[in-house]
């Protein structure tokens, strides 16, 4: 279960991830315009949301580690996240 974040470092990281989530549509559109394509995530839970959940559950460092590990593992039909 997700917990409320009280640690300021965790809060900053979560807000940075939210910032990325807000800016991502601009990057996506920019890539399609200039290069003609951009990959889209179709997982029920995106890596950014997953990272936020892991930070809330396990703390900033472990959460970030789990998030990065998920991004690196992300490939076709991978389901073991």
């Amino acid at each position, binding site marked *: 279960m997700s917990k409320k974040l009280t640690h300021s470092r965790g809060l900053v990281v979560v807000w940075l991830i939210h910032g990325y989530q807000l800016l991502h549509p601009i990057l996506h559109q920019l890539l399609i315009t200039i290069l003609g*394509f*951009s990959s889209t995530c179709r997982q029920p839970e995106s890596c950014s949301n997953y990272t936020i959940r892991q930070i809330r559950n396990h703390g900033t460092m472990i959460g970030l580690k789990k998030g990065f590990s998920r991004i690196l593992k992300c*490939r076709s039909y991978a389901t073991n996240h």
Partner: protein
Amino acid sequence: MQQITNVFLEILVQLHNITGSLGWSILAFTFLARSILLPLSLPSLKSQKKIKEVQPELKKLQEKHRGDKKALQVAQMELYKKYNINPLAGCLPQILQLGLLILLYHVLINFISTPEINGVVLNPKFFWLDLAHADKLYVLPVLAGITQLILSLMIAPGGEVRDVVPNDSKSKKVQVENKKEEDMAQMAATMQKQMLFVMPVMTAFLALSFPSGLALYWVATTVFSIIQQYFFSGWGGLSLYSKRILAKIRPTTVIK
């Protein structure tokens, strides 16, 4: 980095030698670069098309696996596998793409703003434009905005909400968490819808301040994207939005 920039610059200079103008060399470079990138864009476009086709089946899966996120994820991946859809190119290619974008910007700015490269004097005149400076007649910024709007409408059919797990868990805490996730997805969808119109305006303003050579590249590459998109998924959201606008102008028109 500098070596790659030099290679791109050399290609541009050679194109300038062939065409005799900075403008035509930028257009030829756009066509060349996008043609080289085409084999990378095609799988992504094919996947997008297939994902649209399997949407009804995805909805059925969501109904079937209500509240069970893990099972839904597995079933969804199985469905993609069945239809040979590879949507998970992931975020890593985007980082490479971003690098390429920065590199292109760097190369073009260098090419446009340098009057002479390797002893070759560049001719910045192109029709009414001086490509080293912003377009004073505002033609390119307007064109950049319009083409961006057309492309935005083509690739964003109706501003769909990203798939979310149905929020019918028995646990109140899980419900609260799911609600947060839905809100975020809703916000992303709203943002995507706003982007349809924000991006063209932003593009036009950027093109106003950029040297017109860069604006020319932007317009040319957007036109290439529009043609590419048209051949893969037709007019997409553009036909939907034009029907909506027509329905507003003529309320009696029946939308099929």
